[in-house]
């Protein structure tokens, strides 16, 4: 069964094609702002300029025609409206024109599912960290339940915003390393940064403010970067550990754009070996947004009978992870 997946929730327009779980195509176009953050309308314009050619390129690299595609997965949310609309329009048009079933995919679910599929973890606690998300979740009674999350800004957002404010980014990632990581290399720990864990949630905005104040007052930037990273990663690791202890699960999956971060990986490795559980991060290739994860998730959904009519396929900017039923959860565990 051949499934195409279209991703357009944030900065990447991606088209992936999988055939029974085997990746046939993975085309991505990433919008990189020259300065500042992401302006949704600018990205949407960029997406519409690359959409058609991305689909054609994906089909060509898979060596198939559009009529051989059995289902089209579309990430309807969560994400930014203008970008979501581009992907949704493309998917609806293809679906309607060629009579190919359309499958609605939640972007957060897709990040988890590709991680679970590729790492072969069956029933993990999941830490999902990206520019816009910091969520600790695991499957309980049919859905991914949110055990903890950030009460304000996301981990990726914290690092990017700080980098931007002190003028070391964008670009935020250079040779696979975040600029805050690079800056932190020779840094030392500064006492007194706010460490805010409330139950199983973290709050990171106070930390950002504190770091900015230190920077404004001329404190050594490498020390601030080091401490900012140390405190934020530690608090996220701690709430992850709380979820593991609370649910007693034996596996930990790290997924999402920040999953490629070496320091965060190291912390979770240490945490997992102390607790005697199996830790696996999503491979670097699938950490960031991509169309393959949408295609893969759509493949499992389609096998569970989930489709949507093109005329009903509205975007959902705030589509929450724990709203989605996961009837295929154990199907994936069986291996395919």
């Amino acid at each position, binding site marked *: 069964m051949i499934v195409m997946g279209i991703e357009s929730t944030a900065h990447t327009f991606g088209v992936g094609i999988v055939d029974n779980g085997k990746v046939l195509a993975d085309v991505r176009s990433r919008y990189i702002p020259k300065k500042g953050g992401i302006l949704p309308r600018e990205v949407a314009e960029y997406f519409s300029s690359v959409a058609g050619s991305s689909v054609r390129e994906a089909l060509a690299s898979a060596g198939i025609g559009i009529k051989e595609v059995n289902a089209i997965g579309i990430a309807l949310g969560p994400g930014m409206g203008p970008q979501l609309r581009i992907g949704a329009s493309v998917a609806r048009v293809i679906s309607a024109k060629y009579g190919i079933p359309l499958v609605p995919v939640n972007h957060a679910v897709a990040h988890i599912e590709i991680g679970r599929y590729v790492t072969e973890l069956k029933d993990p606690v999941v830490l999902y960290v990206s520019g816009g998300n910091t969520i600790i979740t695991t499957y309980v009674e049919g859905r991914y339940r949110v055990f903890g999350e950030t009460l304000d800004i996301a981990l990726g957002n914290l690092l990017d915003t700080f980098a931007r404010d002190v003028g070391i980014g964008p670009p935020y990632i250079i040779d696979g390393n975040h600029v805050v990581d690079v800056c932190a290399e020779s840094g030392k720990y500064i006492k007194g940064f706010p460490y805010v864990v409330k*139950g199983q949630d973290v709050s990171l905005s106070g930390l950002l403010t504190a770091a900015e104040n230190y920077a404004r007052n001329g404190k050594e930037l490498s020390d601030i970067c080091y401490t900012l990273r140390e405190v934020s990663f530690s608090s996220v690791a701690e709430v992850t550990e709380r979820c593991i202890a*609370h649910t007693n699960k034996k596996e930990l999956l790290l997924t999402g754009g920040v999953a490629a971060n070496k320091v965060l990986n190291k912390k979770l490795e240490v945490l997992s070996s102390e607790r005697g559980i199996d830790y696996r991060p999503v491979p670097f290739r699938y950490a960031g947004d991509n169309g393959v994860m949408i295609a893969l998730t759509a493949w499992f959904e389609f096998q569970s009978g989930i489709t949507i009519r093109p005329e009903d396929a509205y975007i959902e900017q705030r589509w929450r992870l724990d709203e989605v039923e996961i009837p295929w959860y154990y199907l994936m565990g069986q291996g395919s």
Partner: protein
Amino acid sequence: MVLFDGSRILKGIEGFDLIKKGAESEIRLGTFLGEKAIYKVRLRKAYMHHYLDSELRYSRTKKEARIMMSIKEKGINAPLVYAVYPSIGLIVMEYIGAPSLKDLLSSNSEKVLGYFYEVGVLLSRLHSMGIVHGDFTTSNVLIKGGEIFLIDFGLSEFSSKIEDRAMDLHLFRRAILSTHPSAFERGFHVFLDAYASHAKEADEVIKRSQEIELRGRYVELRRRSKWNMHSL
């Protein structure tokens, strides 16, 4: 002269039975002056910077013991504190020996729903003393012979802030929703009704807890059902 040898104390309790490994501490069952006692040790977290780690362990241990002693005085059931050693993250306390609300919910959901009312009343009393629990989940509520004991005050604060009190409601809601979704509809509402009718400024606290839920990203603002589910 060595006045205090933490490592010797920690070594001494290694022989006690490990009954639970929590997120941040090991719980061992031993004896203290002839009584059964719980030894709660906050362990070093190797994934944290050592300064941050020891700062957190010290302050949480000290605060936890202070708050336990304080609420016990005011008549809320909590383990009696026997001894505290903040520098090694150790609290020695009374052994309760009872299942948690979480344990009971997993085994016998129907009967247990009755306890939610009592838990709501108890939380309102805790809040009226100017204390918030900070990690108010079903794991931290023990039921012993129909009486409710609160444990694990590691994230507690002396606070009367609406925000902090609302956080307790939010955490409890989240705990039920994430671990026992099927008990949510009835259980949480019984709890909330009890809290609402006993707590000071209950309306404000409940309203704030709803705002906290909306602060989480991508909150479902309205119910939608548009997927076609059919078996192939």
